[in-house]
């Protein structure tokens, strides 16, 4: 164990703001990853000078994590899942007395696409290059099991436990997959969209109450944002 340092030491390596990554860095990351697990990368997305998404196959989930960790992404941010099915109960934000529109039941995934209802996603960060990657993978509909990241990143242990109890996704090789928040006998997977939020079932939201417009306020809307993906 190194000797403890003096209390007044303040070792800050860098006072000036670190150089923020341009897009060349992100493309380099994708190329590096391709060289390790090339055929398992399904889709990527870069928002310019902002962020990076990579979707891999279900079988490549652990390998992608390993490749990223070796490439310098040693900081584990989080791991969770998304259920892309629209909620059959609606979002409860509209007036319950008004005419109900046909609820939309199409499963439409987001960035980098997807073929299944459930997707796991995780984020890892490279602290030296100040860049992070969001990794996504489909969870097969028939057998909702993924490989566990807990031997790769120790912090994934708790995140996978929470993901398991909330979405019902199993994780192979997880040392101790039991409930994180919910009591032992809880039935159902709360964060799935078909699990109802009982509070809203019992007392529906009255909808957005009509508000008087503020005096002397223009009613013009902001220009609609263009999708530039």
């Amino acid at each position, binding site marked *: *164990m*190194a000797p*403890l*340092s003096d*209390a007044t*030491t*303040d*070792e*800050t390596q*860098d*006072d000036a*703001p*670190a150089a*923020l990554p341009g897009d060349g860095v992100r493309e380099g990351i994708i190329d590096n990853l391709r060289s390790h697990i090339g055929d398992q990368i399904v889709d990527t997305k870069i928002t310019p*000078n902002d*962020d990076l*998404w990579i979707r891999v196959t279900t079988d490549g989930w652990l390998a992608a994590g390993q490749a990223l960790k070796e490439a310098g992404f*040693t*900081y*584990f*941010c*989080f791991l*969770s899942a998304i259920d892309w099915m*629209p*909620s059959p109960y609606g*979002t409860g*934000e509209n007036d319950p007395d008004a005419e109900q529109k046909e609820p939309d039941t199409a499963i439409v995934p*987001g*960035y980098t696409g997807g073929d299944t209802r459930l997707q796991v*996603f995780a984020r890892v960060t490279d*602290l030296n290059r*100040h860049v*992070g990657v*969001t990794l996504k993978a489909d969870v097969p509909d028939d057998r909702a099991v993924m490989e566990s990241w807990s031997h790769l*990143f*120790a*912090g994934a*242990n*708790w*995140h996978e436990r929470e993901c398991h109890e*909330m979405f019902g996704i199993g994780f192979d090789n997880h040392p101790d997959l*039991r*409930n994180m*928040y*919910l*009591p*032992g*006998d809880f039935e159902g997977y*709360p*964060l799935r*969209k078909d699990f109802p*939020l009982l509070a*809203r079932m019992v007392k529906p939201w009255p909808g*957005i109450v009509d508000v008087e417009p503020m005096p002397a306020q223009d*009613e013009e809307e*902001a220009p*609609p*944002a263009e*999708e530039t*993906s």
Partner: protein
Amino acid sequence: MTLTDRQQLSYIASQAADARLNVELETEGMTLNIGPQHPATHGTLRIICRLDGEQVVWAEPVAGYMHRGYEKLTEVRTFPQVTTLVNRIDWLGSFANEVPFILAAEKLMEIEAPPRAQVIRTILFELSRIANVSLFLGDLGVQMGAITPVFLAFRDREYILNLIEGATGGRFHPNFDRIGGLKDDLPKGWIAETRGAVKKLEEFCDTIDDLLFGNEIFQSRMRGIGIIPADIAKDYGLSGPNARASGIDWDLRRDQDLPLSYDLADWKVWTHPDGDSWARCWIRLQETRESCKIVNQLLDQIPAGPVMTKVPRIIKVPEGEAWVATENPLGEMGYYVVSKGGLGPFRVKIRSASFNNISIVPWALKGVYVPDVITILASLYFILGDIDR
């Protein structure tokens, strides 16, 4: 009324599941349950320790006594309603919870708040950091038996809370941030008041430095205890002062390009190479002083202008996904917002700092004495709302 067979079986099964842990532990040593009601834990955290004499052989935190299901709740709320929810995650520095969410929504809408709003947001952010960490500094003494600093902390924190109340209307839950800016402008005289309050907080930091950090007993209780090496810290996702105390030079205020005004002030990031409890606490003290400096500098630079850009009355955020994380008082807090073009989000993943910070507890508590359990937990500093969401 008797329970049905099914109810009884289900109850037994749940008890067995929870008791499985306890049964395994009864063979040797003593099992001590710290919490969920306990003077030391900052809320309802339960830690099951298996002791051998006074040494911990095995420790397991059990969270979830305060789980409120935020991620499910956000799915049925509109975007402005989510800020009310989100205030209550880290309730000591509440304004800081709203900011990443609002920034994510603004990123999806591709708008930016006007400069005045950005600077005021940053000032309020830093004020909530000061409020949060000053309570930590006082509470640190109580964990160890020094009962006086906590009163000083509460007294001096009132100045900050009064300021936040003056600007936003709420001491603990401001709910002030809006998509596109802030709800209101600052009241008259607020800037002068803030300068005075920040000065008092700087004196408080000096007092705590003398009273607590200079105390030999405090040092001998904290130095060399609970050392977390940098690579383990990164593996678990430790963030904020916990990570910087292990020597990781990572501060989201400096290392990211968010529309907050940290580049207008001249400040520095504190790290410490040791990674022990002392380092974690000391860094928080220095960061509080640094926050006071930032607030002082930003107060001189608030530009004139509106506090809100033009946004429609009913906000529909366009389809997309966005991740924004900021350097909250507890660590890195981030929101992954998935929007489908509706009034409210489709899915929000809340990445709270204390969840990762506490996941290291089983590793960190192996082989330490019972008093050091309390010290290590105190230095890791968690808030239950942050762990449990």
